[in-house]
């Protein structure tokens, strides 16, 4: 169990020195040098750093390429939207609901005739 490197009085308060500051005792803490896993070698750590370095470099390159592709292609033109979405616009969907079938200002007939053409 790791505690901060401070010591307590018997009544549970922190020990302070003459100037009123909390007294630190280095020997009570866990130093970074003692906190590393003793069985992992420097080679293994380097290996994992290289592995993650390669993966994230690759991801960065792919990210730039994909982003560039998206920018080059650009968004769909507003006019195209209805054609691309076909029968999936909100009104069409509403018209296709079974309980409203054919009842919403004849939209469904329009959609069908457009689908055929």
């Amino acid at each position, binding site marked *: 169990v790791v505690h901060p490197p401070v010591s307590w009085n018997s009544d549970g308060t922190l020990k302070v020195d003459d100037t009123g500051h909390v007294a630190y005792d280095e020997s009570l803490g866990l130093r970074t040098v003692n906190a590393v*896993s003793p*069985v*992992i070698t420097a080679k*293994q750590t380097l*290996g994992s750093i290289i592995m993650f370095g390669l993966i994230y470099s690759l991801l960065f390159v792919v990210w730039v390429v994909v982003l560039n592709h998206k920018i080059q292609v650009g968004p769909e033109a507003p006019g195209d939207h209805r054609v691309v979405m076909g029968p999936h616009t909100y009104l069409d969907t509403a018209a296709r609901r079974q309980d409203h079938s054919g009842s919403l200002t004849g939209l469904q007939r329009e959609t069908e005739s457009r689908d055929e053409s």
Partner: protein
Amino acid sequence: MSHDTLCITWFFLLGVLLTGYAILDGFDLGVGILHPFVPRSDLDRRVLINSIGPLWDGNEVWLVTFGGAMFAMFPEAYATLFSGFYTAFMALLFCLILRAVSMEFRGKFGGRVWHRFWDGAFFLGSVGVPMLFGVAAGTIMLGVPLDERGNYAGSLAEQITPYSLLVGVMTVALFTMHGSIFLYLKTEGPLQKRVHKYVWRTFGLFLVLYLLTTMFTLVQVPAAVENFRVVPWLWIVPVLNVLAIANIPRAIYQGRPAYAFISSCASIAAFVFLFSAALFPNMVRAADGTSQSLTIYLASSSPTTLKIGLLFVLVGMPCVLAYTFVVYWTFRGKVQIGEHSY
């Protein structure tokens, strides 16, 4: 609750998390292994990928919670295993990342080389994960060399033995079969017919490896059956496992894929149970006997930590189960390819 009861409860909960992970990620790893072989067209391939598309990342969360729970509740065992198996663990992360990246990037461009590359990466990642898990499980079953502080005292080469490799290959076969049954459930038409052939092939392969591993375990790993001698009713689990495995060809023959899938889920749960029962009460068994072994009582956190953890389980588990249910309910039935599919 006493400290011992809390430790046993947490050991059981870790088993539940591992079972959840193995069952859920098991089938999507299996689909990853099968995906270069089963499809004839690019559309088939997309059906395969989309069968696991909305599910695989949720499935892998079970592994994260397993790691997190082990870190919080059994920190000594976590420290020993994750530093002792560091190289294997990095390889595992590499495979898991490779899989995720492959699924996301495959569909970004249309080129043939691009597709082939990510298909290959997806396959390699999918084979690597169960192989590494199996090898690690085999090594842990055999026992690992530990020093007096409970640190791993062996070399990397000692983690790869004929037995651990056999367990690794069996795990790959188990998940491939599990994945093929899942695909049989999720596909239709000519693709399902082709999947059907693979169900039989992968079942045959798994059966051979299962028998080999069982014999090898009984002969070579006497410690694995120690608990079964003390508590004979534990034998009911391997018997149920055999019944579950035997039920798979029966259900497939009857054309009931859901029944077969439940059977293979039960079989995976039985494997995790057998693994845990063979280890108990150890988290990490020392190779030279029991003197240095990290038991669940030695490796655990303080009783307060274990209790607070149980509160989190009480709140978190219903959320996880509800989420899992909603996702699987939403994507129930056969795979449909749409505008936003992979």
